[in-house]
C-alpha cells in the first residue's frame, strides 16, 4: 500500500508544477491580449517568404 502515499505526493507535486506554470503565464501577460497573437502567428510565414527574395529583415520580436 506504500505506493499510494507515493502516488498522492507525486500527484500533489505535479499539480503544483501546473499551478506555477499558470502563475508564470499570467505574470508574463499570456492572458492580456487574446486577439493579436492569433493574427501574429500568420505573419511569420509571410515574412520568411519575403526574406527569401529580399535580405532578411532584422525583426526582433522579443517582448
Amino acid at each position, binding site marked *: 500500500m506504500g505506493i499510494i502515499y507515493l502516488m*498522492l505526493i507525486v500527484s*500533489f507535486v505535479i*499539480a503544483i508544477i501546473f499551478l506555477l506554470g499558470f*502563475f508564470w503565464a499570467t505574470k508574463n501577460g499570456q492572458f*492580456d491580449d*487574446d486577439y493579436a497573437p492569433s*493574427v501574429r502567428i500568420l505573419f511569420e510565414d509571410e515574412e520568411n517568404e519575403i526574406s527569401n527574395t529580399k535580405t532578411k529583415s532584422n*525583426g526582433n520580436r522579443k517582448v
Partner: protein
Amino acid sequence: MSQKSCYHCGDDVIGKGINIDDKNFCCNGCKSVYQLLSSNNLGGFYNLESQAGTRPKKGNNHQFSFLDVEDIRKKFIDFEDDTSSHTTLFLPQIHCSSCIYLLENIHRIEPRIKSCQVNFVKREAKMIFDKEMPLSELATILSKIGYTPNFGNKKEQKKQQSKTYLYKLGVAGFAFGSIMLWTFPEYFGIEKTNPEIRQFSAYLAFIVSIPVLLYSANEYLISAFKAIKYRSINLDVPISIGIIALYAESVYQIFWFGSTGYIDSFAGFVFFLLIGKWFQSKTYQSLSFERDYTSYFPVAVTKLDGSKEIIVEIDKVKIGDKIIIRNQEVLPCDAVLTSKEIKIDYSFVTGESIPVTKKKGEFIYAGGKLLGKKSEFVVEKESSRSHLTQLWNEVNKNEMTQDSKEDKLSTYFLVAILVIAVIAGVYWFFFDQGRTVEIVVSILIVACPCALALSKPFTYGNIMRVLGRRGLYLKNNLVIESINDTTDIVFDKTGTLTTNSTNQVRFIGDELSQNQTNQIILLANSSTHPLSISIVKNLKNSTSTTNFELVNFREIEGKGIEGNINGDIIKIGSSHFVGQTNLNKNETSSHVSINRKHIGRFVFQSEFRPGIVDLLNKLSLKYRLHILSGDKDKDKNFIEKEIPAISNLHFKQSPKDKLSYISSLQEDGCNVLMIGDGLNDAGALEVANTGIAISEDIFRFSPKSDAILKATKLYELNKLFATSNYSKTVLNICYLFSIIYNLVGLSFAVTGNLTPLIAAILMPLSSISIVLLSTLLTIKK
C-alpha cells in the same frame, strides 16, 4: 455608374481620384501611405483585410515637438538603456489584423525602430527604438501611416485587478481539483478499511486548503468583517458565514476523525465565487471612462520668451504668458487673442461643428481648436483654473451606496437562515441533543448563497456584452442597475440629438449645373474642413463620378479653398474670400465663385440624427424627457411640434445650468440619466445617476461617463434600455432557482441527512446551472 472606392481606406473616390498601379485612392494621404508600404514590401497589409487603412490626418510638423522636451519625454519612456528606448503608446486607430501586421513590421519602414508589439485589447503598441531617435519622429512616422498616438491619457492608471483575480482563481482551482482527487475514494466509501491513507489524504487536503482560505477567499472575509464593523449587511456576510462554517466543520472532521469532511466543497465553493468575480472584472480595457480635461488638452504648449519660442509643460504656463497656438491645436487656457482674426472650432466643447470667428482682443475660452494661421495669445487664467476645467473641480459625485438593493436581499436572507437555524437547533436539542451543533453547522453550510452570488455577475456580465455588441459600452455592470432605475432622461441637443458631422446644407443662388456640381464636389473633397465635408456629403448622391482633375489646389486656413478644374478657377470659402460683402451675419455659410463670378452660397443648419423623433416619442411613453441646449431656441418650434411629449425644453443653458438642473431633478427624487457629448456636458454627465457619453468614434475623446454610446446607435436607445431592463427578469429567474437549491439543501440539513457527498454534488450543480441559465437566457438577445 461604377462607384470606385479607395484601395487604402475604403472611402468612395470622388472625381478622378488618384490612380497608381491600377489602384484608386481618395486622397494624397492614402496614396502616400500605400506607396510607403509597397516600397517597403509591406503589401501584405492589403491582403489580410481589404481597405483596412485609416486615412491619415493632416498635421503640422510641430505637432509632436513637445515630445523632445526632456521632462515631457521622460513621462512617456518606460525604460532606457545604452542603445535603445522603450515606450508604450496608445494608438486608438488600431482596429484589425492588418493594423497589427503593419505596426509590427514598422521596422522595415524606419530601421531605427527596433521592434513593436501590439496589444490589441488595449490598443497599445510597445515600441523599442534607437536611443538617438527623437520621440517626436517616432510619433510623426506613426501619424504618417494613419496611427496618430494619443499622448493625452498617459496619466490614467489602469488597475491590474483582473490579474489578481486570475491568481486567486488559479489557487482555488488547483485546490479544488487536488482535493476532489484525494477525496474520490471517500465518495465511494472505499477507504474505510485503510484509515491511515484516509488520514494522510485528509492532512494533504488541509494543507492545500490554507491558501484558499487566506488568499483566495480573503476579499469576501474582509468585506464581511468590514460590513459587520459598520453595522450593515451585504451579501458577503452570509457567504463568509457559510465559508467559515464549512471550513471549521471540515477542520474538526480532519483532526478528530481523519476524514476530509467538506473541504472539497469549500475549495469548489470559493473557486466558483471567484469565477463570478473574474467574469465581472472583464470590462472594456481599451475604452476610457475616466478622462478629464487633462487628457483632452495638449501636454505642452509653445511659449514666447522674448522673441524665442520655447516649449513648456502646460502646468508651467502662468497668467500673462504669451503663447503660440498653431493650426489644429487646442487652446489649453482661457486667453486673449493678440493676433488677427481666427476661427475657433468648439465642437468638442459644445458639439457645435461650425467654427466661430474671433477677432483681435477677444477673450477665448479654453478647449477650442484653432483653425487658421498660427496665432498669439496672452494667458488670462491658468489651465487648471480655466472656465471649462472648473466644472471638473466643482463636481464631487456623492458616492452612493451602490448595492443598496442587494443589501436588503442579503438582510432577509441572513435573517431567514438564522431563524431556520435556531428553530432546527431548538428542535434537535430536545430530540437528539448530541446532534444539535452538527445540524446547525450543516444548515449554515448549505444556506451559503453561492448560486445567489453568481447570478448577478453572470447575468450583468452577459447583458453588458450584448449591449457592447450593439454599440453601448458600459463602464462596469453596476451601470445596468442605474439604467434600470431611470425615471428621467435628459438630452443635450447640439451634437447629441443633432449630428455634428453632417449639417443640413441648402444652396442659395442660381441652380447649379451638373458640371458645376461635380467641380464643387471635387474641390470640397480635397479639404478636411467640416463644412467642406458637409458639402460633399450633401451633393454626392446626386451625381455620377467624373474624370475631372484638380490642379493648383490651395487651402487658406480660416478662409477657404481654391483650385483649378478643367481650366475653371473655383473658390469656396468665406464671403470675403470670394470677394463678396457679407450680408447675413447670423447664418453659417460658404460662398462659391467660379472664374471670379459669385454664383451662390451654401447655408448650413444642424440636422437631427435619423430616427430621433421616433425614438423620443417611444421613450416618452416610459420616461420623462428633458432637453437642455446651449443654443438659442431656433429649434424650439420643431421639437414642440414633432415630439409633444417633451414638456421640458430649456435653451441657452450654460454648462453650470445643466449641472444644477440635474441636481434639482435629483432632489425631487428622480433617477436621472444624462446623454451628452461635449465637454460642456461633462459636469452634468458626472452628477447624473447615469451619464452616457455619445461619440462618433468610441476610442476618441469622450467626457467622463458611466457608458459610451456609438452615435450611430442612438436611434436604438429604447431597445438598448429594454435589453438592460431584461436583466431584471433574468436575475429574478436566477434568484428563484438559487432559492430552490437552498431549500433542497436546507431540507437535507434540517433533517440531519447532509453528508459531504450530497454537499459535494449540490454545490457545483447549483453554481453551474445558474451560470448556464443566465447565459442561455441572455444569449438570444
